[in-house]
């Protein structure tokens, strides 16, 4: 049973993933957060999972009858906040005022 019959409860803002989409996967037997991540793109947007991952953990816990502590958090990888390629390359050049 979904709590999101209209598909208007947004869990991941970056990739517009709804509660319903996640619940459907869990009901289909997929409860590994890494799998849910790859199939729905939760946690893969520009917020890097900051908003959605804790929510998804609680959804899995509720639907799959697990404790939140039993659900491993997905790896945190560099960069821990998005960075422009040009900045990592070194000097952005022309528009640098300093």
């Amino acid at each position: 049973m979904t709590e999101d019959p209209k598909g208007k409860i947004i869990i991941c803002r970056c990739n517009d993933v709804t509660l319903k989409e996640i619940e459907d996967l869990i009901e289909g037997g997929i409860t590994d957060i890494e799998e849910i991540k790859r199939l729905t793109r939760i946690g893969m947007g520009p917020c890097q999972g900051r908003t959605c991952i804790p929510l998804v953990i609680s959804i899995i816990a509720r639907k799959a009858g697990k404790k939140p502590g039993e659900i491993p958090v997905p790896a945190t990888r560099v960069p821990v906040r998005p960075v422009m390629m040009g900045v990592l390359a070194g000097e952005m050049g022309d528009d640098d005022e300093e």
Partner: protein
Amino acid sequence: MPTRELPEKSEITIIGGGIIGVTLAHELAKRGEEVTVIEKRFIGSGSTFRCGTGIRQQFNDEANVQVMKRSVELWKKYSEEYGFPFSQTGYLFLLYDDEEVETFKRNIAIQNKFGVPTRLITPEEAKEIVPLLDISEVVAASWNPTDGKASPFHSTAKFALHAEEFGARLVEYTEVKDFVIENGEIKGLKTSRGTIKTGIVVNATNAWAKLVNAMAVIRTKIPIEPYKHQAVITQPIKNGSVKPMVISFRYGHAYLTQTAHGGIIGGVGYELGPTYDLNPTYEFMREVSYYFTKIIPALRELLILRTWAGHYAKTPDSNPAIGKIEELSDYYIAAGFSGHGFMMAPAVAEMMADLITKGRTDLPAWWYDPYRFERGELRGVALQMG
């Protein structure tokens, strides 16, 4: 749905649920064989879901060109039948000097011989294909519009689904711990969920192949080592911004393209290992940014969202080891893909299924003979990037 239930017995058991194991299970089951895949975590979780998504026929030897030509045919066929995204958006190798051009002319001749329509194009033509390219240093490009890319997640999931429809069993979250061997014959496999009786085992664990070989006490020298390669993905941009896979050996052996979702994905030649460590490094983040912005300067303002690492399971000649290992019946290996496993999988599945069910294949399996290392007959190093 993949299960966590281990069957009591299976004629054929594949260790490793990556794209190789899954497509092989699919092919064997389709031919009516009883087959089980045993995967330590979940389908695709090893190297498959970490790969750079590219599928190309532009190799530098006849065997790989033939195998990849067949593979692309199969990618196309199954993507249409099963409905997963595979797009023939081409591979574009940027060339910066005469020597590179000469090398690629030779490669193109080999490719053309087998009907792969690669051709040399001008920098301006390259820019028409990818308008954001910086071609100021480019002298020519090698272009094959029939190369492509596919989503590792969706394609593997579809192959898995249809493999099960044909009767294959995919067992996840189950780790093979040991072989049950009697008088040189495989009788079964001990796993974290108990023992499965089986006669034929395929080692499809790629980066972990040496560990499985050791478990089976294989003495034949099959040098496959795990090297750490890293990849990057950016924030999504308008689809169609970078259609083909763009390659530049000059700039860091870089490869980059756009995913169906819109992010720029790719990597460079920076390699660490042998190691099982998968922590991304600072050096990679910097190098990939420098080289990518050299190739497409407009990427400078694009945000990197994530980097990650996966394994290239490398052999000394960057060609996989595919075939039967005679010292143990019936033990097969399909591993050591050196970064080409995803793209080769459908053809390798066909080749392996031929070898297992018929003992012979029309595809040039001899090139990947696992005994070549022992005999000191290394192949020419397969063209590799990233």
